[in-house]
Protein backbone atom coordinates (compact mmCIF):
# COMPACT_ATOMS: atom_id res chain seq x y z
CA UNK A 1 0.00 0.00 0.00
CA UNK A 2 1.44 3.35 -1.05
CA UNK A 3 0.37 6.63 0.52
CA UNK A 4 1.68 9.94 -0.79
CA UNK A 5 2.31 12.64 1.83
CA UNK A 6 -0.30 15.38 1.84
CA UNK A 7 2.52 17.86 1.63
CA UNK A 8 5.84 16.87 0.03
CA UNK A 9 8.56 18.40 2.24
CA UNK A 10 12.30 18.05 2.67
CA UNK A 11 13.00 14.78 4.46
CA UNK A 12 14.50 15.13 7.92
CA UNK A 13 16.69 12.16 7.01
CA UNK A 14 19.38 12.31 4.34
CA UNK A 15 19.15 9.65 1.65
CA UNK A 16 22.53 8.15 2.53
CA UNK A 17 21.44 7.69 6.15
CA UNK A 18 18.24 5.97 5.07
CA UNK A 19 20.29 3.68 2.84
CA UNK A 20 22.96 2.84 5.38
CA UNK A 21 20.49 2.25 8.21
CA UNK A 22 18.42 -0.05 6.01
CA UNK A 23 21.54 -1.98 5.02
CA UNK A 24 22.60 -2.31 8.66
CA UNK A 25 19.19 -3.74 9.55
CA UNK A 26 19.51 -6.29 6.77
CA UNK A 27 23.08 -7.16 7.73
CA UNK A 28 21.99 -7.91 11.30
CA UNK A 29 19.82 -10.69 9.87
CA UNK A 30 22.07 -11.74 7.01
CA UNK A 31 25.75 -12.47 7.76
CA UNK A 32 26.50 -12.75 4.04
CA UNK A 33 26.24 -8.98 3.51
CA UNK A 34 29.62 -7.23 3.24
CA UNK A 35 30.60 -3.79 1.96
CA UNK A 36 33.44 -2.44 -0.15
CA UNK A 37 34.11 1.30 -0.16
CA UNK A 38 36.60 3.37 -2.14
CA UNK A 39 37.70 6.17 0.18
CA UNK A 40 34.28 7.81 0.02
CA UNK A 41 32.69 6.37 3.16
CA UNK A 42 32.19 9.82 4.66
CA UNK A 43 30.52 11.00 1.46
CA UNK A 44 28.43 7.90 0.79
CA UNK A 45 27.41 7.72 4.44
CA UNK A 46 28.51 4.15 5.06
CA UNK A 47 30.69 4.76 8.14
CA UNK A 48 28.03 3.43 10.47
CA UNK A 49 28.02 0.10 8.67
CA UNK A 50 31.74 -0.19 9.38
CA UNK A 51 31.18 0.73 13.04
CA UNK A 52 28.48 -1.92 13.34
CA UNK A 53 30.29 -4.62 11.34
CA UNK A 54 34.04 -3.89 11.40
CA UNK A 55 34.86 -7.36 10.07
CA UNK A 56 32.47 -7.13 7.16
CA UNK A 57 33.27 -3.63 5.86
CA UNK A 58 36.32 -3.01 3.66
CA UNK A 59 37.56 0.42 2.68
CA UNK A 60 40.13 -0.46 0.02
CA UNK A 61 41.06 3.10 -0.88
CA UNK A 62 40.78 4.79 -4.24
CA UNK A 63 40.52 1.60 -6.27
CA UNK A 64 37.18 1.41 -7.99
CA UNK A 65 38.26 -1.13 -10.61
CA UNK A 66 39.64 -3.40 -7.95
CA UNK A 67 36.52 -2.93 -5.83
CA UNK A 68 34.25 -4.25 -8.58
CA UNK A 69 36.59 -7.14 -9.37
CA UNK A 70 36.93 -8.05 -5.72
CA UNK A 71 33.17 -7.86 -5.27
CA UNK A 72 32.76 -10.48 -7.98
CA UNK A 73 35.30 -12.69 -6.25
CA UNK A 74 33.75 -12.24 -2.81
CA UNK A 75 30.31 -13.02 -4.22
CA UNK A 76 31.68 -16.24 -5.71
CA UNK A 77 32.48 -17.41 -2.17
CA UNK A 78 28.84 -16.93 -1.18
CA UNK A 79 28.88 -13.39 0.20
CA UNK A 80 26.66 -10.48 -0.94
CA UNK A 81 28.98 -7.51 -1.48
CA UNK A 82 27.66 -3.94 -1.68
CA UNK A 83 30.09 -1.57 -3.44
CA UNK A 84 29.78 2.16 -2.73
CA UNK A 85 31.22 5.16 -4.54
CA UNK A 86 30.01 8.13 -6.57
CA UNK A 87 27.72 7.18 -9.45
CA UNK A 88 30.23 8.36 -12.07
CA UNK A 89 32.91 6.00 -10.75
CA UNK A 90 30.45 3.23 -9.90
CA UNK A 91 29.49 2.90 -13.54
CA UNK A 92 31.47 4.62 -16.26
CA UNK A 93 34.87 4.14 -14.63
CA UNK A 94 34.42 0.46 -13.84
CA UNK A 95 32.00 -0.70 -16.48
CA UNK A 96 34.33 -3.45 -17.69
CA UNK A 97 34.91 -4.84 -14.21
CA UNK A 98 31.20 -4.86 -13.43
CA UNK A 99 30.54 -6.56 -16.75
CA UNK A 100 33.28 -9.17 -16.52
CA UNK A 101 33.68 -10.04 -12.86
CA UNK A 102 30.10 -9.41 -11.73
CA UNK A 103 27.44 -9.60 -14.44
CA UNK A 104 28.97 -11.93 -17.05
CA UNK A 105 30.48 -14.00 -14.26
CA UNK A 106 26.98 -14.49 -12.82
CA UNK A 107 27.82 -13.04 -9.40
CA UNK A 108 25.51 -11.62 -6.76
CA UNK A 109 26.92 -8.08 -6.45
CA UNK A 110 25.18 -4.82 -5.58
CA UNK A 111 26.62 -1.52 -6.82
CA UNK A 112 25.48 1.73 -5.20
CA UNK A 113 26.19 5.03 -6.92
CA UNK A 114 25.80 8.25 -4.92
CA UNK A 115 25.34 11.77 -6.27
CA UNK A 116 22.78 11.03 -8.95
CA UNK A 117 22.70 13.53 -11.82
CA UNK A 118 22.51 17.19 -10.85
CA UNK A 119 22.71 16.33 -7.15
CA UNK A 120 26.51 16.24 -7.69
CA UNK A 121 26.11 20.04 -7.74
CA UNK A 122 29.38 21.61 -6.53
CA UNK A 123 31.52 18.68 -7.69
CA UNK A 124 30.59 19.80 -11.18
CA UNK A 125 30.53 18.23 -14.62
CA UNK A 126 33.32 15.74 -13.97
CA UNK A 127 31.28 14.16 -11.18
CA UNK A 128 27.81 14.55 -12.67
CA UNK A 129 26.38 11.18 -13.63
CA UNK A 130 23.98 11.66 -16.52
CA UNK A 131 24.99 8.38 -18.19
CA UNK A 132 25.11 5.93 -15.29
CA UNK A 133 21.61 4.52 -15.56
CA UNK A 134 21.83 4.25 -19.35
CA UNK A 135 25.15 2.46 -19.14
CA UNK A 136 23.84 0.00 -16.60
CA UNK A 137 20.55 -0.52 -18.41
CA UNK A 138 22.50 -1.76 -21.42
CA UNK A 139 24.16 -4.55 -19.45
CA UNK A 140 22.37 -7.88 -19.80
CA UNK A 141 20.37 -9.43 -17.01
CA UNK A 142 20.83 -6.82 -14.28
CA UNK A 143 18.46 -4.72 -12.17
CA UNK A 144 18.63 -0.91 -12.17
CA UNK A 145 16.73 1.29 -9.72
CA UNK A 146 16.56 4.71 -8.12
CA UNK A 147 14.42 4.98 -5.00
CA UNK A 148 12.67 8.34 -4.80
CA UNK A 149 12.71 8.97 -1.06
CA UNK A 150 13.92 7.52 2.26
CA UNK A 151 10.67 5.66 2.89
CA UNK A 152 10.99 3.85 -0.42
CA UNK A 153 14.69 3.26 0.21
CA UNK A 154 13.89 1.48 3.48
CA UNK A 155 11.38 -0.70 1.71
CA UNK A 156 13.56 -1.55 -1.28
CA UNK A 157 16.95 -2.27 0.34
CA UNK A 158 15.76 -5.67 1.65
CA UNK A 159 14.46 -6.46 -1.83
CA UNK A 160 17.82 -5.51 -3.33
CA UNK A 161 19.49 -7.89 -0.90
CA UNK A 162 17.08 -10.65 -1.87
CA UNK A 163 17.41 -10.04 -5.61
CA UNK A 164 19.96 -12.49 -7.00
CA UNK A 165 22.44 -11.03 -9.49
CA UNK A 166 23.86 -7.60 -10.18
CA UNK A 167 21.79 -4.65 -8.97
CA UNK A 168 22.68 -1.00 -9.59
CA UNK A 169 21.11 1.40 -7.09
CA UNK A 170 21.46 5.12 -7.68
CA UNK A 171 20.73 7.90 -5.22
CA UNK A 172 21.30 11.52 -4.26
CA UNK A 173 23.21 11.32 -1.03
CA UNK A 174 22.05 14.31 0.99
CA UNK A 175 18.89 16.36 0.76
CA UNK A 176 15.82 14.66 -0.67
CA UNK A 177 12.10 15.22 -0.29
CA UNK A 178 9.83 12.81 1.53
CA UNK A 179 7.16 11.81 -0.93
CA UNK A 180 5.66 8.81 0.81
CA UNK A 181 4.20 8.28 4.22
CA UNK A 182 6.05 5.94 6.55
CA UNK A 183 5.02 2.33 6.01
CA UNK A 184 4.31 2.66 2.29
CA UNK A 185 5.27 -0.52 0.51
CA UNK A 186 6.81 -0.94 -2.92
CA UNK A 187 7.75 -3.91 -5.06
CA UNK A 188 10.98 -3.91 -7.05
CA UNK A 189 10.08 -3.95 -10.75
CA UNK A 190 6.57 -2.68 -10.25
CA UNK A 191 5.81 1.00 -10.91
CA UNK A 192 3.36 2.93 -8.76
CA UNK A 193 0.62 5.24 -10.01
CA UNK A 194 0.81 7.87 -7.27
CA UNK A 195 -1.64 10.40 -8.68
CA UNK A 196 -4.49 9.62 -11.00
CA UNK A 197 -5.28 11.58 -14.12
CA UNK A 198 -6.87 11.04 -17.50
CA UNK A 199 -5.32 13.45 -20.06
CA UNK A 200 -1.64 12.59 -19.87
CA UNK A 201 0.78 10.50 -17.77
CA UNK A 202 3.98 11.90 -16.28
CA UNK A 203 6.35 8.96 -15.74
CA UNK A 204 9.16 10.00 -13.39
CA UNK A 205 12.13 8.53 -11.58
CA UNK A 206 14.18 9.65 -8.57
CA UNK A 207 14.09 13.32 -7.64
CA UNK A 208 11.95 14.04 -10.69
CA UNK A 209 8.99 12.35 -9.00
CA UNK A 210 8.54 15.42 -6.80
CA UNK A 211 8.82 17.72 -9.82
CA UNK A 212 6.25 15.63 -11.70
CA UNK A 213 3.82 15.86 -8.76
CA UNK A 214 4.30 19.63 -8.74
CA UNK A 215 3.84 19.74 -12.53
CA UNK A 216 0.57 17.81 -12.20
CA UNK A 217 -0.69 20.56 -9.90
CA UNK A 218 0.34 23.26 -12.40
CA UNK A 219 -1.45 21.37 -15.18
CA UNK A 220 -4.52 20.91 -13.02
CA UNK A 221 -4.74 24.68 -12.66
CA UNK A 222 -4.91 24.81 -16.45
CA UNK A 223 -7.63 22.19 -16.58
CA UNK A 224 -5.36 19.29 -17.56
CA UNK A 225 -5.67 16.05 -15.65
CA UNK A 226 -2.20 14.52 -15.31
CA UNK A 227 -1.46 11.09 -13.93
CA UNK A 228 1.90 10.58 -12.20
CA UNK A 229 3.82 7.30 -12.15
CA UNK A 230 6.88 6.58 -10.01
CA UNK A 231 8.99 4.30 -12.23
CA UNK A 232 11.67 3.62 -9.61
CA UNK A 233 12.84 0.45 -11.34
CA UNK A 234 14.41 1.39 -14.66
CA UNK A 235 15.21 -2.23 -15.47
CA UNK A 236 13.28 -4.44 -15.77
CA UNK A 237 10.84 -1.72 -16.73
CA UNK A 238 7.18 -2.16 -15.85
CA UNK A 239 5.84 -2.42 -19.41
CA UNK A 240 2.36 -3.34 -18.21
CA UNK A 241 2.03 -0.06 -16.34
CA UNK A 242 3.35 1.95 -19.31
CA UNK A 243 0.92 0.32 -21.74
CA UNK A 244 -1.98 0.78 -19.33
CA UNK A 245 -1.19 4.48 -18.91
CA UNK A 246 -0.77 4.94 -22.68
CA UNK A 247 -4.14 3.35 -23.28
CA UNK A 248 -5.94 5.21 -20.51
CA UNK A 249 -4.41 8.69 -20.92
CA UNK A 250 -3.19 8.70 -24.54
CA UNK A 251 -0.04 10.79 -23.93
CA UNK A 252 3.16 10.44 -21.91
CA UNK A 253 5.97 12.66 -20.64
CA UNK A 254 8.99 11.04 -19.01
CA UNK A 255 10.99 12.93 -16.36
CA UNK A 256 14.53 11.98 -15.35
CA UNK A 257 17.56 13.54 -13.67
CA UNK A 258 19.94 12.19 -16.32
CA UNK A 259 20.51 12.03 -20.05
CA UNK A 260 17.45 11.31 -22.15
CA UNK A 261 19.76 9.08 -24.23
CA UNK A 262 19.17 5.50 -23.10
CA UNK A 263 17.51 6.55 -19.86
CA UNK A 264 13.90 6.40 -18.70
CA UNK A 265 12.53 8.17 -21.77
CA UNK A 266 14.27 5.71 -24.07
CA UNK A 267 13.06 2.74 -22.04
CA UNK A 268 9.45 3.97 -22.07
CA UNK A 269 9.63 4.76 -25.80
CA UNK A 270 10.89 1.23 -26.48
CA UNK A 271 7.85 -0.21 -24.74
CA UNK A 272 5.46 2.12 -26.52
CA UNK A 273 6.73 1.58 -30.06
CA UNK A 274 6.50 -2.17 -29.66
CA UNK A 275 2.91 -1.92 -28.46
CA UNK A 276 0.53 0.98 -29.05
CA UNK A 277 2.48 4.22 -29.43
CA UNK A 278 1.01 7.47 -28.12
CA UNK A 279 2.48 10.99 -28.36
CA UNK A 280 5.30 11.37 -25.85
CA UNK A 281 7.98 13.83 -24.76
CA UNK A 282 11.13 13.50 -22.68
CA UNK A 283 12.24 15.74 -19.82
CA UNK A 284 15.87 15.16 -18.93
CA UNK A 285 19.35 16.25 -19.89
CA UNK A 286 19.39 16.83 -23.64
CA UNK A 287 22.65 15.10 -24.60
CA UNK A 288 24.93 17.49 -22.69
CA UNK A 289 27.66 17.30 -20.08
CA UNK A 290 26.99 18.54 -16.57
CA UNK A 291 28.40 21.69 -15.01
CA UNK A 292 29.10 23.10 -11.59
CA UNK A 293 26.60 25.00 -9.47
CA UNK A 294 23.88 24.75 -6.86
CA UNK A 295 21.34 22.01 -7.48
CA UNK A 296 18.49 24.46 -7.92
CA UNK A 297 20.42 26.31 -10.64
CA UNK A 298 21.24 23.01 -12.36
CA UNK A 299 17.62 21.87 -12.30
CA UNK A 300 16.73 25.08 -14.08
CA UNK A 301 19.74 24.94 -16.41
CA UNK A 302 18.94 21.41 -17.59
CA UNK A 303 15.19 21.89 -17.73
CA UNK A 304 14.22 19.49 -14.96
CA UNK A 305 11.72 21.61 -13.03
CA UNK A 306 7.97 21.28 -12.70
CA UNK A 307 7.46 24.23 -15.05
CA UNK A 308 9.50 22.49 -17.75
CA UNK A 309 7.49 19.32 -17.31
CA UNK A 310 4.18 21.17 -17.50
CA UNK A 311 5.28 23.00 -20.67
CA UNK A 312 6.41 19.73 -22.25
CA UNK A 313 3.08 18.12 -21.34
CA UNK A 314 1.19 20.88 -23.11
CA UNK A 315 3.38 20.46 -26.24
CA UNK A 316 2.75 16.72 -26.24
CA UNK A 317 -0.99 17.19 -25.77
CA UNK A 318 -1.10 19.20 -29.02
CA UNK A 319 0.03 16.04 -30.82
CA UNK A 320 -2.57 13.87 -29.16
Amino acid at each position, binding site marked *: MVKVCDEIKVSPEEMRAAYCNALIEEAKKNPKIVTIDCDLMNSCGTKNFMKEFPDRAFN*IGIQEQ*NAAGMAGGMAST*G*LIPFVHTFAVFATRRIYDQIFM*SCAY*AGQNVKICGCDAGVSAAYNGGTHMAFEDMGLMRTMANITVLEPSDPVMMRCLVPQVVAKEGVVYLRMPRKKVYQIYEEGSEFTLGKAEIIRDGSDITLIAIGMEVRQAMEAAKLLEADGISARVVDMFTLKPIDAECINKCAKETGAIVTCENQSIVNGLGSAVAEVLVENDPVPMGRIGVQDEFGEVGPQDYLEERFGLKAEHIAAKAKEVLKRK
Partner: protein
Amino acid sequence: MSEQVNFEELKRFSAEIRKETVRAIGYAGFGHIGGSVSISDVLAVLYGGMMNIDPSNPKWEDRDRLVLSKGHCGPGLYAALALKGFFPMDWLKTVNKPGTNLPSHADGQKTPGVDMSTGSLGNGASSAVGIALGSRVQGRDNYTYCIVGDGETNEGEVWEAAETAAALKLDHFVLFVDWNKKQLDGRLEDILDPGDLEEKFRAFGFDARTVKGYDTEEIWKGIEEAKKVEGKPHVIILDTIKGLGIDFAEAEEFNHYMTFDIEKAEEACAEIDRRLAEGTYPGGDFKW
Protein backbone atom coordinates in the same frame (compact mmCIF):
# COMPACT_ATOMS: atom_id res chain seq x y z
CA MET B 1 54.83 -32.67 2.36
CA SER B 2 57.03 -32.65 -0.76
CA GLU B 3 58.60 -35.94 0.41
CA GLN B 4 55.31 -37.63 -0.43
CA VAL B 5 55.08 -36.17 -3.93
CA ASN B 6 56.01 -38.26 -6.95
CA PHE B 7 57.63 -35.61 -9.12
CA GLU B 8 58.05 -37.99 -12.05
CA GLU B 9 54.30 -38.45 -12.02
CA LEU B 10 53.77 -34.69 -11.88
CA LYS B 11 56.04 -34.25 -14.86
CA ARG B 12 54.04 -36.87 -16.77
CA PHE B 13 50.84 -35.09 -15.78
CA SER B 14 52.18 -31.82 -17.17
CA ALA B 15 52.98 -33.67 -20.41
CA GLU B 16 49.42 -34.95 -20.57
CA ILE B 17 48.09 -31.43 -19.98
CA ARG B 18 50.40 -30.04 -22.68
CA LYS B 19 49.30 -32.73 -25.13
CA GLU B 20 45.60 -32.28 -24.49
CA THR B 21 45.99 -28.51 -24.76
CA VAL B 22 47.63 -28.65 -28.19
CA ARG B 23 45.08 -31.24 -29.30
CA ALA B 24 42.14 -29.11 -28.11
CA ILE B 25 43.45 -26.13 -30.07
CA GLY B 26 44.23 -28.41 -33.01
CA TYR B 27 40.63 -29.64 -33.08
CA ALA B 28 39.44 -26.03 -33.04
CA GLY B 29 41.99 -25.20 -35.78
CA PHE B 30 43.21 -22.04 -34.08
CA GLY B 31 43.80 -20.59 -30.64
CA HIS B 32 46.06 -19.11 -27.99
CA ILE B 33 48.67 -21.84 -28.03
CA GLY B 34 51.73 -19.92 -26.76
CA GLY B 35 50.44 -18.91 -23.34
CA SER B 36 48.26 -22.02 -22.95
CA VAL B 37 51.25 -24.36 -22.89
CA SER B 38 53.61 -22.11 -20.95
CA ILE B 39 51.34 -22.76 -17.94
CA SER B 40 51.02 -26.55 -18.38
CA ASP B 41 53.55 -27.17 -15.61
CA VAL B 42 52.03 -24.92 -12.98
CA LEU B 43 48.61 -26.38 -13.81
CA ALA B 44 50.07 -29.86 -13.30
CA VAL B 45 51.30 -28.87 -9.85
CA LEU B 46 48.02 -27.23 -8.85
CA TYR B 47 45.69 -29.94 -10.14
CA GLY B 48 48.18 -32.76 -9.56
CA GLY B 49 47.95 -32.54 -5.79
CA MET B 50 48.59 -29.02 -4.53
CA MET B 51 44.99 -27.85 -4.70
CA ASN B 52 42.39 -29.30 -2.37
CA ILE B 53 39.58 -29.97 -4.84
CA ASP B 54 36.85 -32.50 -5.56
CA PRO B 55 36.12 -32.98 -9.28
CA SER B 56 32.81 -34.63 -8.40
CA ASN B 57 31.79 -31.50 -6.47
CA PRO B 58 33.26 -28.53 -8.36
CA LYS B 59 31.32 -25.99 -6.26
CA TRP B 60 32.49 -27.39 -2.90
CA GLU B 61 32.65 -24.33 -0.63
CA ASP B 62 35.93 -25.12 1.11
CA ARG B 63 37.88 -25.97 -2.03
CA ASP B 64 41.06 -24.24 -3.07
CA ARG B 65 40.43 -22.02 -6.07
CA LEU B 66 42.26 -20.96 -9.17
CA VAL B 67 41.54 -17.81 -11.11
CA LEU B 68 43.11 -17.99 -14.55
CA SER B 69 43.32 -14.24 -14.98
CA LYS B 70 44.93 -14.66 -18.40
CA GLY B 71 41.57 -16.04 -19.46
CA HIS B 72 42.52 -16.46 -23.12
CA CYS B 73 44.49 -19.54 -22.09
CA GLY B 74 41.29 -21.40 -21.27
CA PRO B 75 42.27 -24.46 -23.35
CA GLY B 76 45.28 -25.05 -21.09
CA LEU B 77 43.03 -25.06 -18.03
CA TYR B 78 40.37 -27.19 -19.76
CA ALA B 79 42.97 -29.86 -20.46
CA ALA B 80 43.88 -30.06 -16.76
CA LEU B 81 40.24 -30.08 -15.66
CA ALA B 82 39.26 -32.79 -18.14
CA LEU B 83 42.20 -34.97 -17.12
CA LYS B 84 41.10 -34.58 -13.47
CA GLY B 85 37.57 -35.68 -14.40
CA PHE B 86 35.68 -32.40 -14.00
CA PHE B 87 34.05 -33.17 -17.36
CA PRO B 88 34.41 -35.78 -20.14
CA MET B 89 37.61 -35.74 -22.21
CA ASP B 90 35.43 -35.58 -25.34
CA TRP B 91 34.55 -32.00 -24.51
CA LEU B 92 38.09 -30.99 -25.41
CA LYS B 93 37.16 -31.54 -29.06
CA THR B 94 34.50 -28.84 -28.81
CA VAL B 95 36.58 -25.76 -27.92
CA ASN B 96 35.07 -22.69 -29.63
CA LYS B 97 32.48 -24.78 -31.49
CA PRO B 98 28.85 -23.53 -31.46
CA GLY B 99 27.15 -24.33 -28.16
CA THR B 100 30.37 -25.50 -26.46
CA ASN B 101 30.98 -25.41 -22.72
CA LEU B 102 34.63 -24.59 -23.45
CA PRO B 103 34.88 -21.09 -24.93
CA SER B 104 38.26 -19.58 -25.81
CA HIS B 105 38.22 -17.50 -22.59
CA ALA B 106 37.58 -19.16 -19.22
CA ASP B 107 33.92 -19.04 -18.22
CA GLY B 108 32.84 -20.04 -14.72
CA GLN B 109 29.21 -20.13 -15.80
CA LYS B 110 29.83 -22.75 -18.43
CA THR B 111 32.72 -24.99 -17.43
CA PRO B 112 32.74 -27.24 -14.34
CA GLY B 113 35.89 -26.49 -12.35
CA VAL B 114 36.46 -22.97 -13.66
CA ASP B 115 36.28 -20.82 -10.53
CA MET B 116 35.87 -17.39 -12.15
CA SER B 117 35.11 -15.98 -15.58
CA THR B 118 38.02 -14.05 -17.01
CA GLY B 119 39.09 -12.56 -20.31
CA SER B 120 39.45 -8.84 -19.78
CA LEU B 121 43.01 -8.74 -18.51
CA GLY B 122 43.61 -7.60 -14.96
CA ASN B 123 40.09 -8.43 -13.76
CA GLY B 124 41.03 -11.88 -12.52
CA ALA B 125 43.66 -10.53 -10.15
CA SER B 126 41.00 -8.48 -8.36
CA SER B 127 38.52 -11.34 -8.37
CA ALA B 128 41.11 -13.65 -6.87
CA VAL B 129 41.87 -11.15 -4.10
CA GLY B 130 38.12 -10.97 -3.49
CA ILE B 131 37.91 -14.75 -3.28
CA ALA B 132 40.81 -14.88 -0.84
CA LEU B 133 39.21 -12.18 1.31
CA GLY B 134 35.73 -13.72 1.07
CA SER B 135 37.14 -17.08 2.15
CA ARG B 136 38.88 -15.49 5.13
CA VAL B 137 35.77 -13.53 6.15
CA GLN B 138 33.91 -16.83 6.32
CA GLY B 139 36.60 -18.51 8.37
CA ARG B 140 37.79 -20.88 5.68
CA ASP B 141 41.38 -22.07 5.55
CA ASN B 142 41.55 -22.66 1.80
CA TYR B 143 44.07 -21.18 -0.63
CA THR B 144 43.30 -18.97 -3.60
CA TYR B 145 45.66 -19.19 -6.56
CA CYS B 146 45.76 -16.86 -9.52
CA ILE B 147 47.74 -16.91 -12.76
CA VAL B 148 48.41 -13.62 -14.54
CA GLY B 149 50.37 -13.22 -17.74
CA ASP B 150 53.58 -11.22 -17.73
CA GLY B 151 52.10 -8.89 -20.36
CA GLU B 152 48.99 -8.69 -18.19
CA THR B 153 50.99 -6.82 -15.57
CA ASN B 154 50.72 -3.85 -17.97
CA GLU B 155 47.21 -3.51 -16.53
CA GLY B 156 46.97 -1.16 -13.57
CA GLU B 157 44.28 -3.32 -12.01
CA VAL B 158 46.87 -6.03 -11.31
CA TRP B 159 48.72 -3.55 -9.12
CA GLU B 160 45.57 -2.33 -7.41
CA ALA B 161 44.85 -5.95 -6.53
CA ALA B 162 48.42 -6.46 -5.36
CA GLU B 163 48.30 -3.40 -3.13
CA THR B 164 45.08 -4.57 -1.51
CA ALA B 165 46.26 -8.17 -1.07
CA ALA B 166 49.29 -6.88 0.82
CA ALA B 167 47.36 -4.32 2.88
CA LEU B 168 44.88 -7.02 3.92
CA LYS B 169 47.73 -9.48 4.63
CA LEU B 170 46.12 -12.18 2.50
CA ASP B 171 48.64 -14.93 3.16
CA HIS B 172 46.38 -17.59 1.67
CA PHE B 173 46.68 -15.92 -1.71
CA VAL B 174 49.31 -17.18 -4.18
CA LEU B 175 49.80 -15.27 -7.41
CA PHE B 176 51.74 -16.76 -10.31
CA VAL B 177 53.18 -14.64 -13.11
CA ASP B 178 53.60 -16.61 -16.31
CA TRP B 179 56.89 -14.97 -17.25
CA ASN B 180 57.12 -16.32 -20.79
CA LYS B 181 58.67 -13.05 -22.01
CA LYS B 182 56.16 -12.29 -24.76
CA GLN B 183 52.83 -10.58 -25.13
CA LEU B 184 50.55 -10.46 -28.16
CA ASP B 185 52.47 -7.88 -30.16
CA GLY B 186 55.94 -9.09 -29.33
CA ARG B 187 58.57 -9.31 -26.59
CA LEU B 188 57.87 -7.55 -23.30
CA GLU B 189 60.87 -5.27 -23.56
CA ASP B 190 59.74 -4.12 -27.02
CA ILE B 191 56.16 -3.34 -25.96
CA LEU B 192 56.12 -2.17 -22.34
CA ASP B 193 59.04 -3.44 -20.32
CA PRO B 194 57.77 -4.40 -16.85
CA GLY B 195 61.28 -4.46 -15.38
CA ASP B 196 62.06 -6.75 -12.47
CA LEU B 197 58.67 -8.22 -11.59
CA GLU B 198 59.91 -10.07 -8.51
CA GLU B 199 61.30 -6.84 -7.04
CA LYS B 200 58.18 -4.92 -8.02
CA PHE B 201 55.91 -7.33 -6.18
CA ARG B 202 58.26 -7.36 -3.22
CA ALA B 203 58.01 -3.58 -3.12
CA PHE B 204 54.23 -3.98 -3.10
CA GLY B 205 54.52 -6.05 0.07
CA PHE B 206 54.54 -9.56 -1.38
CA ASP B 207 56.57 -12.54 -0.37
CA ALA B 208 58.24 -13.01 -3.77
CA ARG B 209 60.32 -15.67 -5.51
CA THR B 210 61.16 -16.85 -9.02
CA VAL B 211 61.24 -20.52 -10.04
CA LYS B 212 61.82 -22.47 -13.23
CA GLY B 213 58.33 -22.37 -14.63
CA TYR B 214 58.82 -25.59 -16.62
CA ASP B 215 59.95 -27.60 -13.62
CA THR B 216 57.06 -29.07 -11.63
CA GLU B 217 59.31 -29.96 -8.69
CA GLU B 218 60.61 -26.39 -8.38
CA ILE B 219 57.12 -24.96 -8.67
CA TRP B 220 55.80 -27.33 -6.01
CA LYS B 221 58.61 -26.55 -3.62
CA GLY B 222 58.27 -22.84 -4.34
CA ILE B 223 54.63 -22.95 -3.27
CA GLU B 224 55.55 -24.89 -0.13
CA GLU B 225 58.19 -22.32 0.75
CA ALA B 226 55.73 -19.49 0.11
CA LYS B 227 53.13 -20.99 2.42
CA LYS B 228 55.59 -20.90 5.29
CA VAL B 229 55.62 -17.09 5.14
CA GLU B 230 52.79 -15.66 7.21
CA GLY B 231 51.11 -12.27 6.97
CA LYS B 232 51.94 -11.59 3.33
CA PRO B 233 50.47 -12.57 -0.03
CA HIS B 234 52.81 -14.59 -2.23
CA VAL B 235 53.97 -14.19 -5.79
CA ILE B 236 55.83 -16.85 -7.74
CA ILE B 237 57.35 -15.73 -11.02
CA LEU B 238 57.36 -18.66 -13.43
CA ASP B 239 60.44 -18.29 -15.60
CA THR B 240 59.43 -20.04 -18.79
CA ILE B 241 59.04 -19.83 -22.57
CA LYS B 242 55.97 -19.01 -24.60
CA GLY B 243 54.96 -22.09 -26.59
CA LEU B 244 57.23 -24.29 -24.48
CA GLY B 245 57.28 -27.96 -25.42
CA ILE B 246 55.38 -27.52 -28.67
CA ASP B 247 58.24 -27.10 -31.11
CA PHE B 248 56.39 -25.47 -33.98
CA ALA B 249 54.82 -22.97 -31.58
CA GLU B 250 57.98 -22.28 -29.61
CA ALA B 251 59.89 -21.61 -32.85
CA GLU B 252 57.33 -19.06 -34.03
CA GLU B 253 58.16 -15.48 -32.97
CA PHE B 254 54.53 -14.40 -32.89
CA ASN B 255 53.03 -17.42 -31.16
CA HIS B 256 50.33 -15.81 -29.04
CA TYR B 257 47.63 -17.11 -31.35
CA MET B 258 48.23 -19.64 -34.11
CA THR B 259 46.37 -21.61 -36.72
CA PHE B 260 47.12 -25.33 -37.01
CA ASP B 261 45.26 -28.62 -37.41
CA ILE B 262 44.97 -31.79 -35.34
CA GLU B 263 47.61 -33.60 -37.43
CA LYS B 264 50.16 -30.96 -36.53
CA ALA B 265 49.04 -31.21 -32.89
CA GLU B 266 49.51 -34.99 -32.93
CA GLU B 267 53.06 -34.58 -34.26
CA ALA B 268 53.78 -32.31 -31.29
CA CYS B 269 52.27 -34.90 -28.93
CA ALA B 270 54.51 -37.63 -30.38
CA GLU B 271 57.53 -35.42 -29.75
CA ILE B 272 56.44 -34.88 -26.15
CA ASP B 273 56.19 -38.65 -25.67
CA ARG B 274 59.62 -39.15 -27.24
CA ARG B 275 61.19 -36.57 -24.93
CA LEU B 276 59.52 -38.09 -21.90
CA ALA B 277 60.97 -41.47 -22.84
CA GLU B 278 64.48 -40.10 -23.33
CA GLY B 279 64.31 -37.80 -20.28
CA THR B 280 64.56 -34.48 -22.12
CA TYR B 281 60.97 -33.34 -21.55
CA PRO B 282 59.76 -30.60 -21.85
CA GLY B 283 62.65 -29.62 -24.16
CA GLY B 284 62.76 -25.93 -24.97
CA ASP B 285 65.40 -23.47 -25.92
CA PHE B 286 66.47 -22.55 -22.40
CA LYS B 287 68.71 -19.58 -21.92
CA TRP B 288 68.43 -19.19 -18.18
